[in-house]
Structures are given as structure tokens and as C-alpha cells.
């Protein structure tokens, strides 16, 4: 069959266009990112980063004047939470589709998001997934605002370590043990986790260590859903270690965590705990800049 592929009409855009006119489309895109990831998996085709309502970059403001207007609009909205949605440059509240507004700030005229990612990759072997790099750029911006200095590569790495790798409270992985039967994908996992200094043992079975870990956490009352996962080796030879970037959904909010370890299994579990710790830390993650958290 001849395949001439320009595409069908996009029902997601149609539905959300209707929604932002106040008409419920009777389809549910409250968690639009996992929907996009699943469709990308099934179609083996990427969704464009600027695709309306869902692309990785559509809730991202790069320009300082836009960010300023949005910040003021959000602040006004906090004062009038019942008023119709009217925030500059944002036709929809990102929270309605399970996203957050992300102010991507350029560290200086030469750097910005690309610059930070480039330095982390070249000098520290850390390859941030795109959405994490958007989020992290705000952390760096806070450092820039605080120090009012030119940001160095070492400062960027330190900010990354503080924000993600050193998040060990309340949860911290002490050790884990895995076992599996031959010819079965099922893994039995036992993880010892220090929770505010008290050691607890979590165990569960799942298809793979991460799935088992998520189940073990759920068993202990921590419902966590993996939205996105990336991993790679860092360094070479016997010094190589694994780094895992995990985006999870906790209590309806998407949060990133990062873990490193010699073992990829431990790195991924540490990544999940890093995300949980960031979620529970008293200081709101810089990335989730929303009407509720903007000062």
C-alpha cells in the first residue's frame, strides 16, 4: 500500500482547544505526559517538542519579559483563584494536564539550557534528559541570582549534586538483595531503607528490579508511578558508574530524581528515592513553579 503520511487530525489538540473554551471534551488528558510517552512507544515516532498542549517545550518560557509577565499573572491568580484563567502567554493552566510551568532562564548570553547541559556532559559525563535539563536550569538560575557571579562548571555540578544526588532525607537506600528463578522475568527484591534514621526492610516481586522496588514502596504506602526513565554509564573502565534519571508521579505531581552507583539497580532505586525526597523536602522544587509555589 502506498503510504503518504501527513497525518490524521490530532484529537488531543481538538479536545484541549474545546476545553480551553470552557467545553468539556469528554476525554481525559489530566496526565498528558504519560499519554504522550505511551503513544510514542506504540507508534515508535516522537511527538514534536513544540506540539500544542503536550510537547516538552510548550510550558517553557525562555524570554525574560515573558517570564516576568507570567510571574505577575500567576501572582494575580493567587489573589483571585476563582476568576477565569487569564495568565499571560499561557492559554491553559499547565496543572490541568499534569504539567508545570517552567521558567528557563539563561545563565548568561552564551549559556542557558543548552550551555548548562553541555558543560555537565563535557566535564562531568552527565547527560540530562531534556525535561530534566529544563528543570535544572532553574536551579542554576537560583544559584546565579544568589551569588551574582559568572557560573562555573564546578558550581553547576555542585548545584546538581545538592539538588538531586545528595537528597538523602527522609529516605536513604542502605542495601538491597535480589533473587530470581531461572527462566522467569520475576525478580524478588529486598531493600533496606533508612527512613529518618530508622531502618526498614521493604520487599516485593516484580518484572525487573525497578518494578519490584516500586511495588515494595507501594506496599509500604508510598504510591509512586514511573513516568520516564533514562540511564547511562558515567566514566570508563573500572571507575565507571551508572547514573539513572527517574521522573515519577507522587501525589499527582511529576518530580525528577537522580541516583548514581556502581550498580545500575542501586542507581535506579536511589533515583526513585531522590525524587521522593525532593517531593517531601520542605523547600518546593524550583521546577514546580506554579501559581501555588511562586513567591
Amino acid at each position, binding site marked *: 500500500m502506498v503510504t503518504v503520511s501527513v*497525518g490524521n487530525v490530532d484529537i488531543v489538540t481538538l479536545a484541549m482547544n474545546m476545553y480551553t473554551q470552557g467545553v468539556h471534551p*469528554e*476525554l481525559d488528558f489530566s496526565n498528558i505526559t504519560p499519554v504522550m510517552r*505511551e*503513544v510514542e512507544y506504540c507508534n515508535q515516532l516522537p511527538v514534536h517538542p513544540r506540539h500544542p498542549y503536550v510537547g516538552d517545550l510548550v510550558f517553557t518560557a525562555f524570554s525574560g519579559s515573558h517570564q516576568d509577565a507570567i510571574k505577575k499573572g500567576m501572582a494575580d491568580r493567587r489573589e483571585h483563584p476563582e476568576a477565569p484563567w487569564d495568565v499571560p502567554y499561557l492559554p491553559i493552566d499547565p496543572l490541568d494536564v499534569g504539567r508545570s510551568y517552567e521558567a528557563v532562564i539563561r545563565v548568561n548570553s552564551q549559556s542557558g539550557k543548552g550551555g548548562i547541559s553541555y558543560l555537565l556532559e563535557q566535564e562531568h559525563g552527565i547527560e540530562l534528559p531534556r525535561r530534566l535539563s529544563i528543570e535544572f536550569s532553574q536551579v542554576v538560575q537560583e544559584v546565579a541570582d544568589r551569588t551574582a557571579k559568572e557560573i562555573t562548571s564546578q558550581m553547576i555540578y555542585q548545584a546538581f549534586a545538592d539538588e538531586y544526588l545528595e537528597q538523602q532525607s527522609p529516605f536513604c537506600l542502605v542495601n538491597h538483595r535480589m533473587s530470581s528463578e531461572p527462566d522467569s522475568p520475576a525478580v524478588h527484591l529486598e531493600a533496606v531503607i533508612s527512613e529518618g534514621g530508622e531502618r526498614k526492610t521493604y520487599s516485593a516481586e516484580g518484572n525487573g528490579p525497578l518494578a519490584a522496588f516500586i511495588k515494595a514502596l507501594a506496599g509500604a504506602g508510598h504510591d509512586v508511578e514511573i513516568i520516564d526513565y533514562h540511564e547511562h554509564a558515567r566514566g570508563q573502565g573500572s571507575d565507571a558508574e551508572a547514573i539513572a534519571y527517574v521522573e515519577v508521579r507522587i501525589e499527582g505531581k511529576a518530580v525528577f530524581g537522580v541516583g548514581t552507583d556502581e550498580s545500575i539497580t542501586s542507581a535506579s532505586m536511589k533515583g526513585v528515592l531522590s525524587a521522593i525526597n525532593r517531593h517531601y523536602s520542605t523547600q518546593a522544587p524550583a521546577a514546580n513553579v506554579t501559581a501555588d509555589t511562586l513567591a
Partner: protein
Amino acid sequence: MMLSDPAKKYSPFVAVDIPDRQWPNQRIEKAPIWTSVDLRDGNQSLIDPMDQERKQRLFDLLVKVGFKEIEVGFPSASQTDFDFVRALIEQNKIPEDVTIQVLTQARPHLIERTFEALKGAKNAIVHVYNATDPMFRRVVFNVNKEECIQIAVDATRQIRDQMNDAPETHWTFQYSPELFTTTEMDFAVEIVEAVMDTYAPSIDHRMIVNLPATVEVATPNNYADQIEWFCRNVKNRDTLIVSVHPHNDRGTGVAAAELTLMAGADRVEGTLFGNGERR
């Protein structure tokens, strides 16, 4: 190379004559019936078509998001599609309130195979199409208007009879004049009415008439004009569910769908994030 005078090669779309069009004054005030064609039109356009696991995952996602009508394949044209439809039915994977839809060409043995695929389904839409556009009639299929109508009517009769032979399924019939937007509007109405005469839809048992922009060839207001013209001129409009199926050749698929809803369409066929092919 682009021509200095493209008019020598390309002619503009000729608009429908409808000076008293009403659709520009309308608003979209309720959701249409959404029909996902991800697993059929979408799947046909993939470099690597979905395997059973991916199809099942996408089907489950579509159900979770809230689709009540899902076109699941072209079972008479593809064994993979046939097997997938069978698996959905035999393994009871279709929720009570979800209707599956399958596409078939208007050819007797393919229609028969389509019904084999649907055996035991609780609810199903049988979607048959034939090309009605003058270029396709003349060059691709070499049929005149009468022969083109006969193809649609024969297929409709066979589908109606096979539906009557399998009363355990709640059936819905769907007909598409493929390439509707480049078909003469009076001929589109004529062939749809001939199909209606054969199938005999009623207000209580409506049939779906799907009017695709198989290739998007004009600004979206033209599609809306055509839908309004069709709805105003077809007989017994209230026995029809009028469906649109826009494509995005000119980058205005979403706009076209919105304007056709203003113009009276009841239903939209499309895909998540706009993946997809034709028909």
C-alpha cells in the same frame, strides 16, 4: 524547482456555492463523538507497524482516555489486524460501553472476511468505503457514476444481510465516500442517498456517513461549506450521524475539524497527536 508561475501547474480549489452559509455564526458547545483511528489509519502509516503488544497497549490507553469508538483495524486486508480483532473479542478485552470499528473495501469476499473477524463482538461498526472522486472514477477504477453507486449499494446490501444473520451483535453501519472533498457535492449526496435507500436507517437506528478530507486540498472553510451543504441537502438528515475525517496535508487539519463541527458534523475521526495515513 518551484515554478515562477505555479498557476500553470496548480489550479485553485473551486468552492461550493453556498452564499447563505450559517456555520461562521455557530459555536462548538458540546463534544462530538470521538472515534480513534490510531490502530488503523495511524498504524498503516508507521514505518514499523505495531505488533500485538503495542496494539493492545494503545487500545488500553484509548479506553483509559475515554474513547467510546475505536477503529481497531482492517481485518480483511491484514492477518495481524484480523488476529488482533479476534484476540480483543475472544479475550473479552473490550469494555461494555466501547464499540470497535473495522474498515473494509466494498468487495464481497473482503466483507465476508470482515464479519468472520467480528464474530461474537457485543458492539461493532462495519465501515465500508469506495472512492467517489471523478479522478478516481475515471483513472483509477474506470467506472462511471452509475457503476460507482452500484459498488456502494451492493456492498451495503451484503453488509445489511450479514448483520441480520448475526443478531447477537449490536451493529452500526458506516459508509464513507472516499475523497469526499474532491467529489462533486451533488454526486456525494446521490451516492449516500442510494446507500441509505438500501440500508434504511431510521431516527432510532441511525447510520454513520463519514465524509473524509482524504487529501486536504483547500482552506478549512471549504470543508465546512461542504459539510453544511451536505447536511442541508441530504434527505432524512436526522437518520444520519455525520462524521468528518480530516487530514493534515496543508497543516490545517485541526482548524478544518473545528469548522466542520460548527457546520453540523456530529463525529470526528482522528488520532492522538495526529499520527496517521489516509481514508
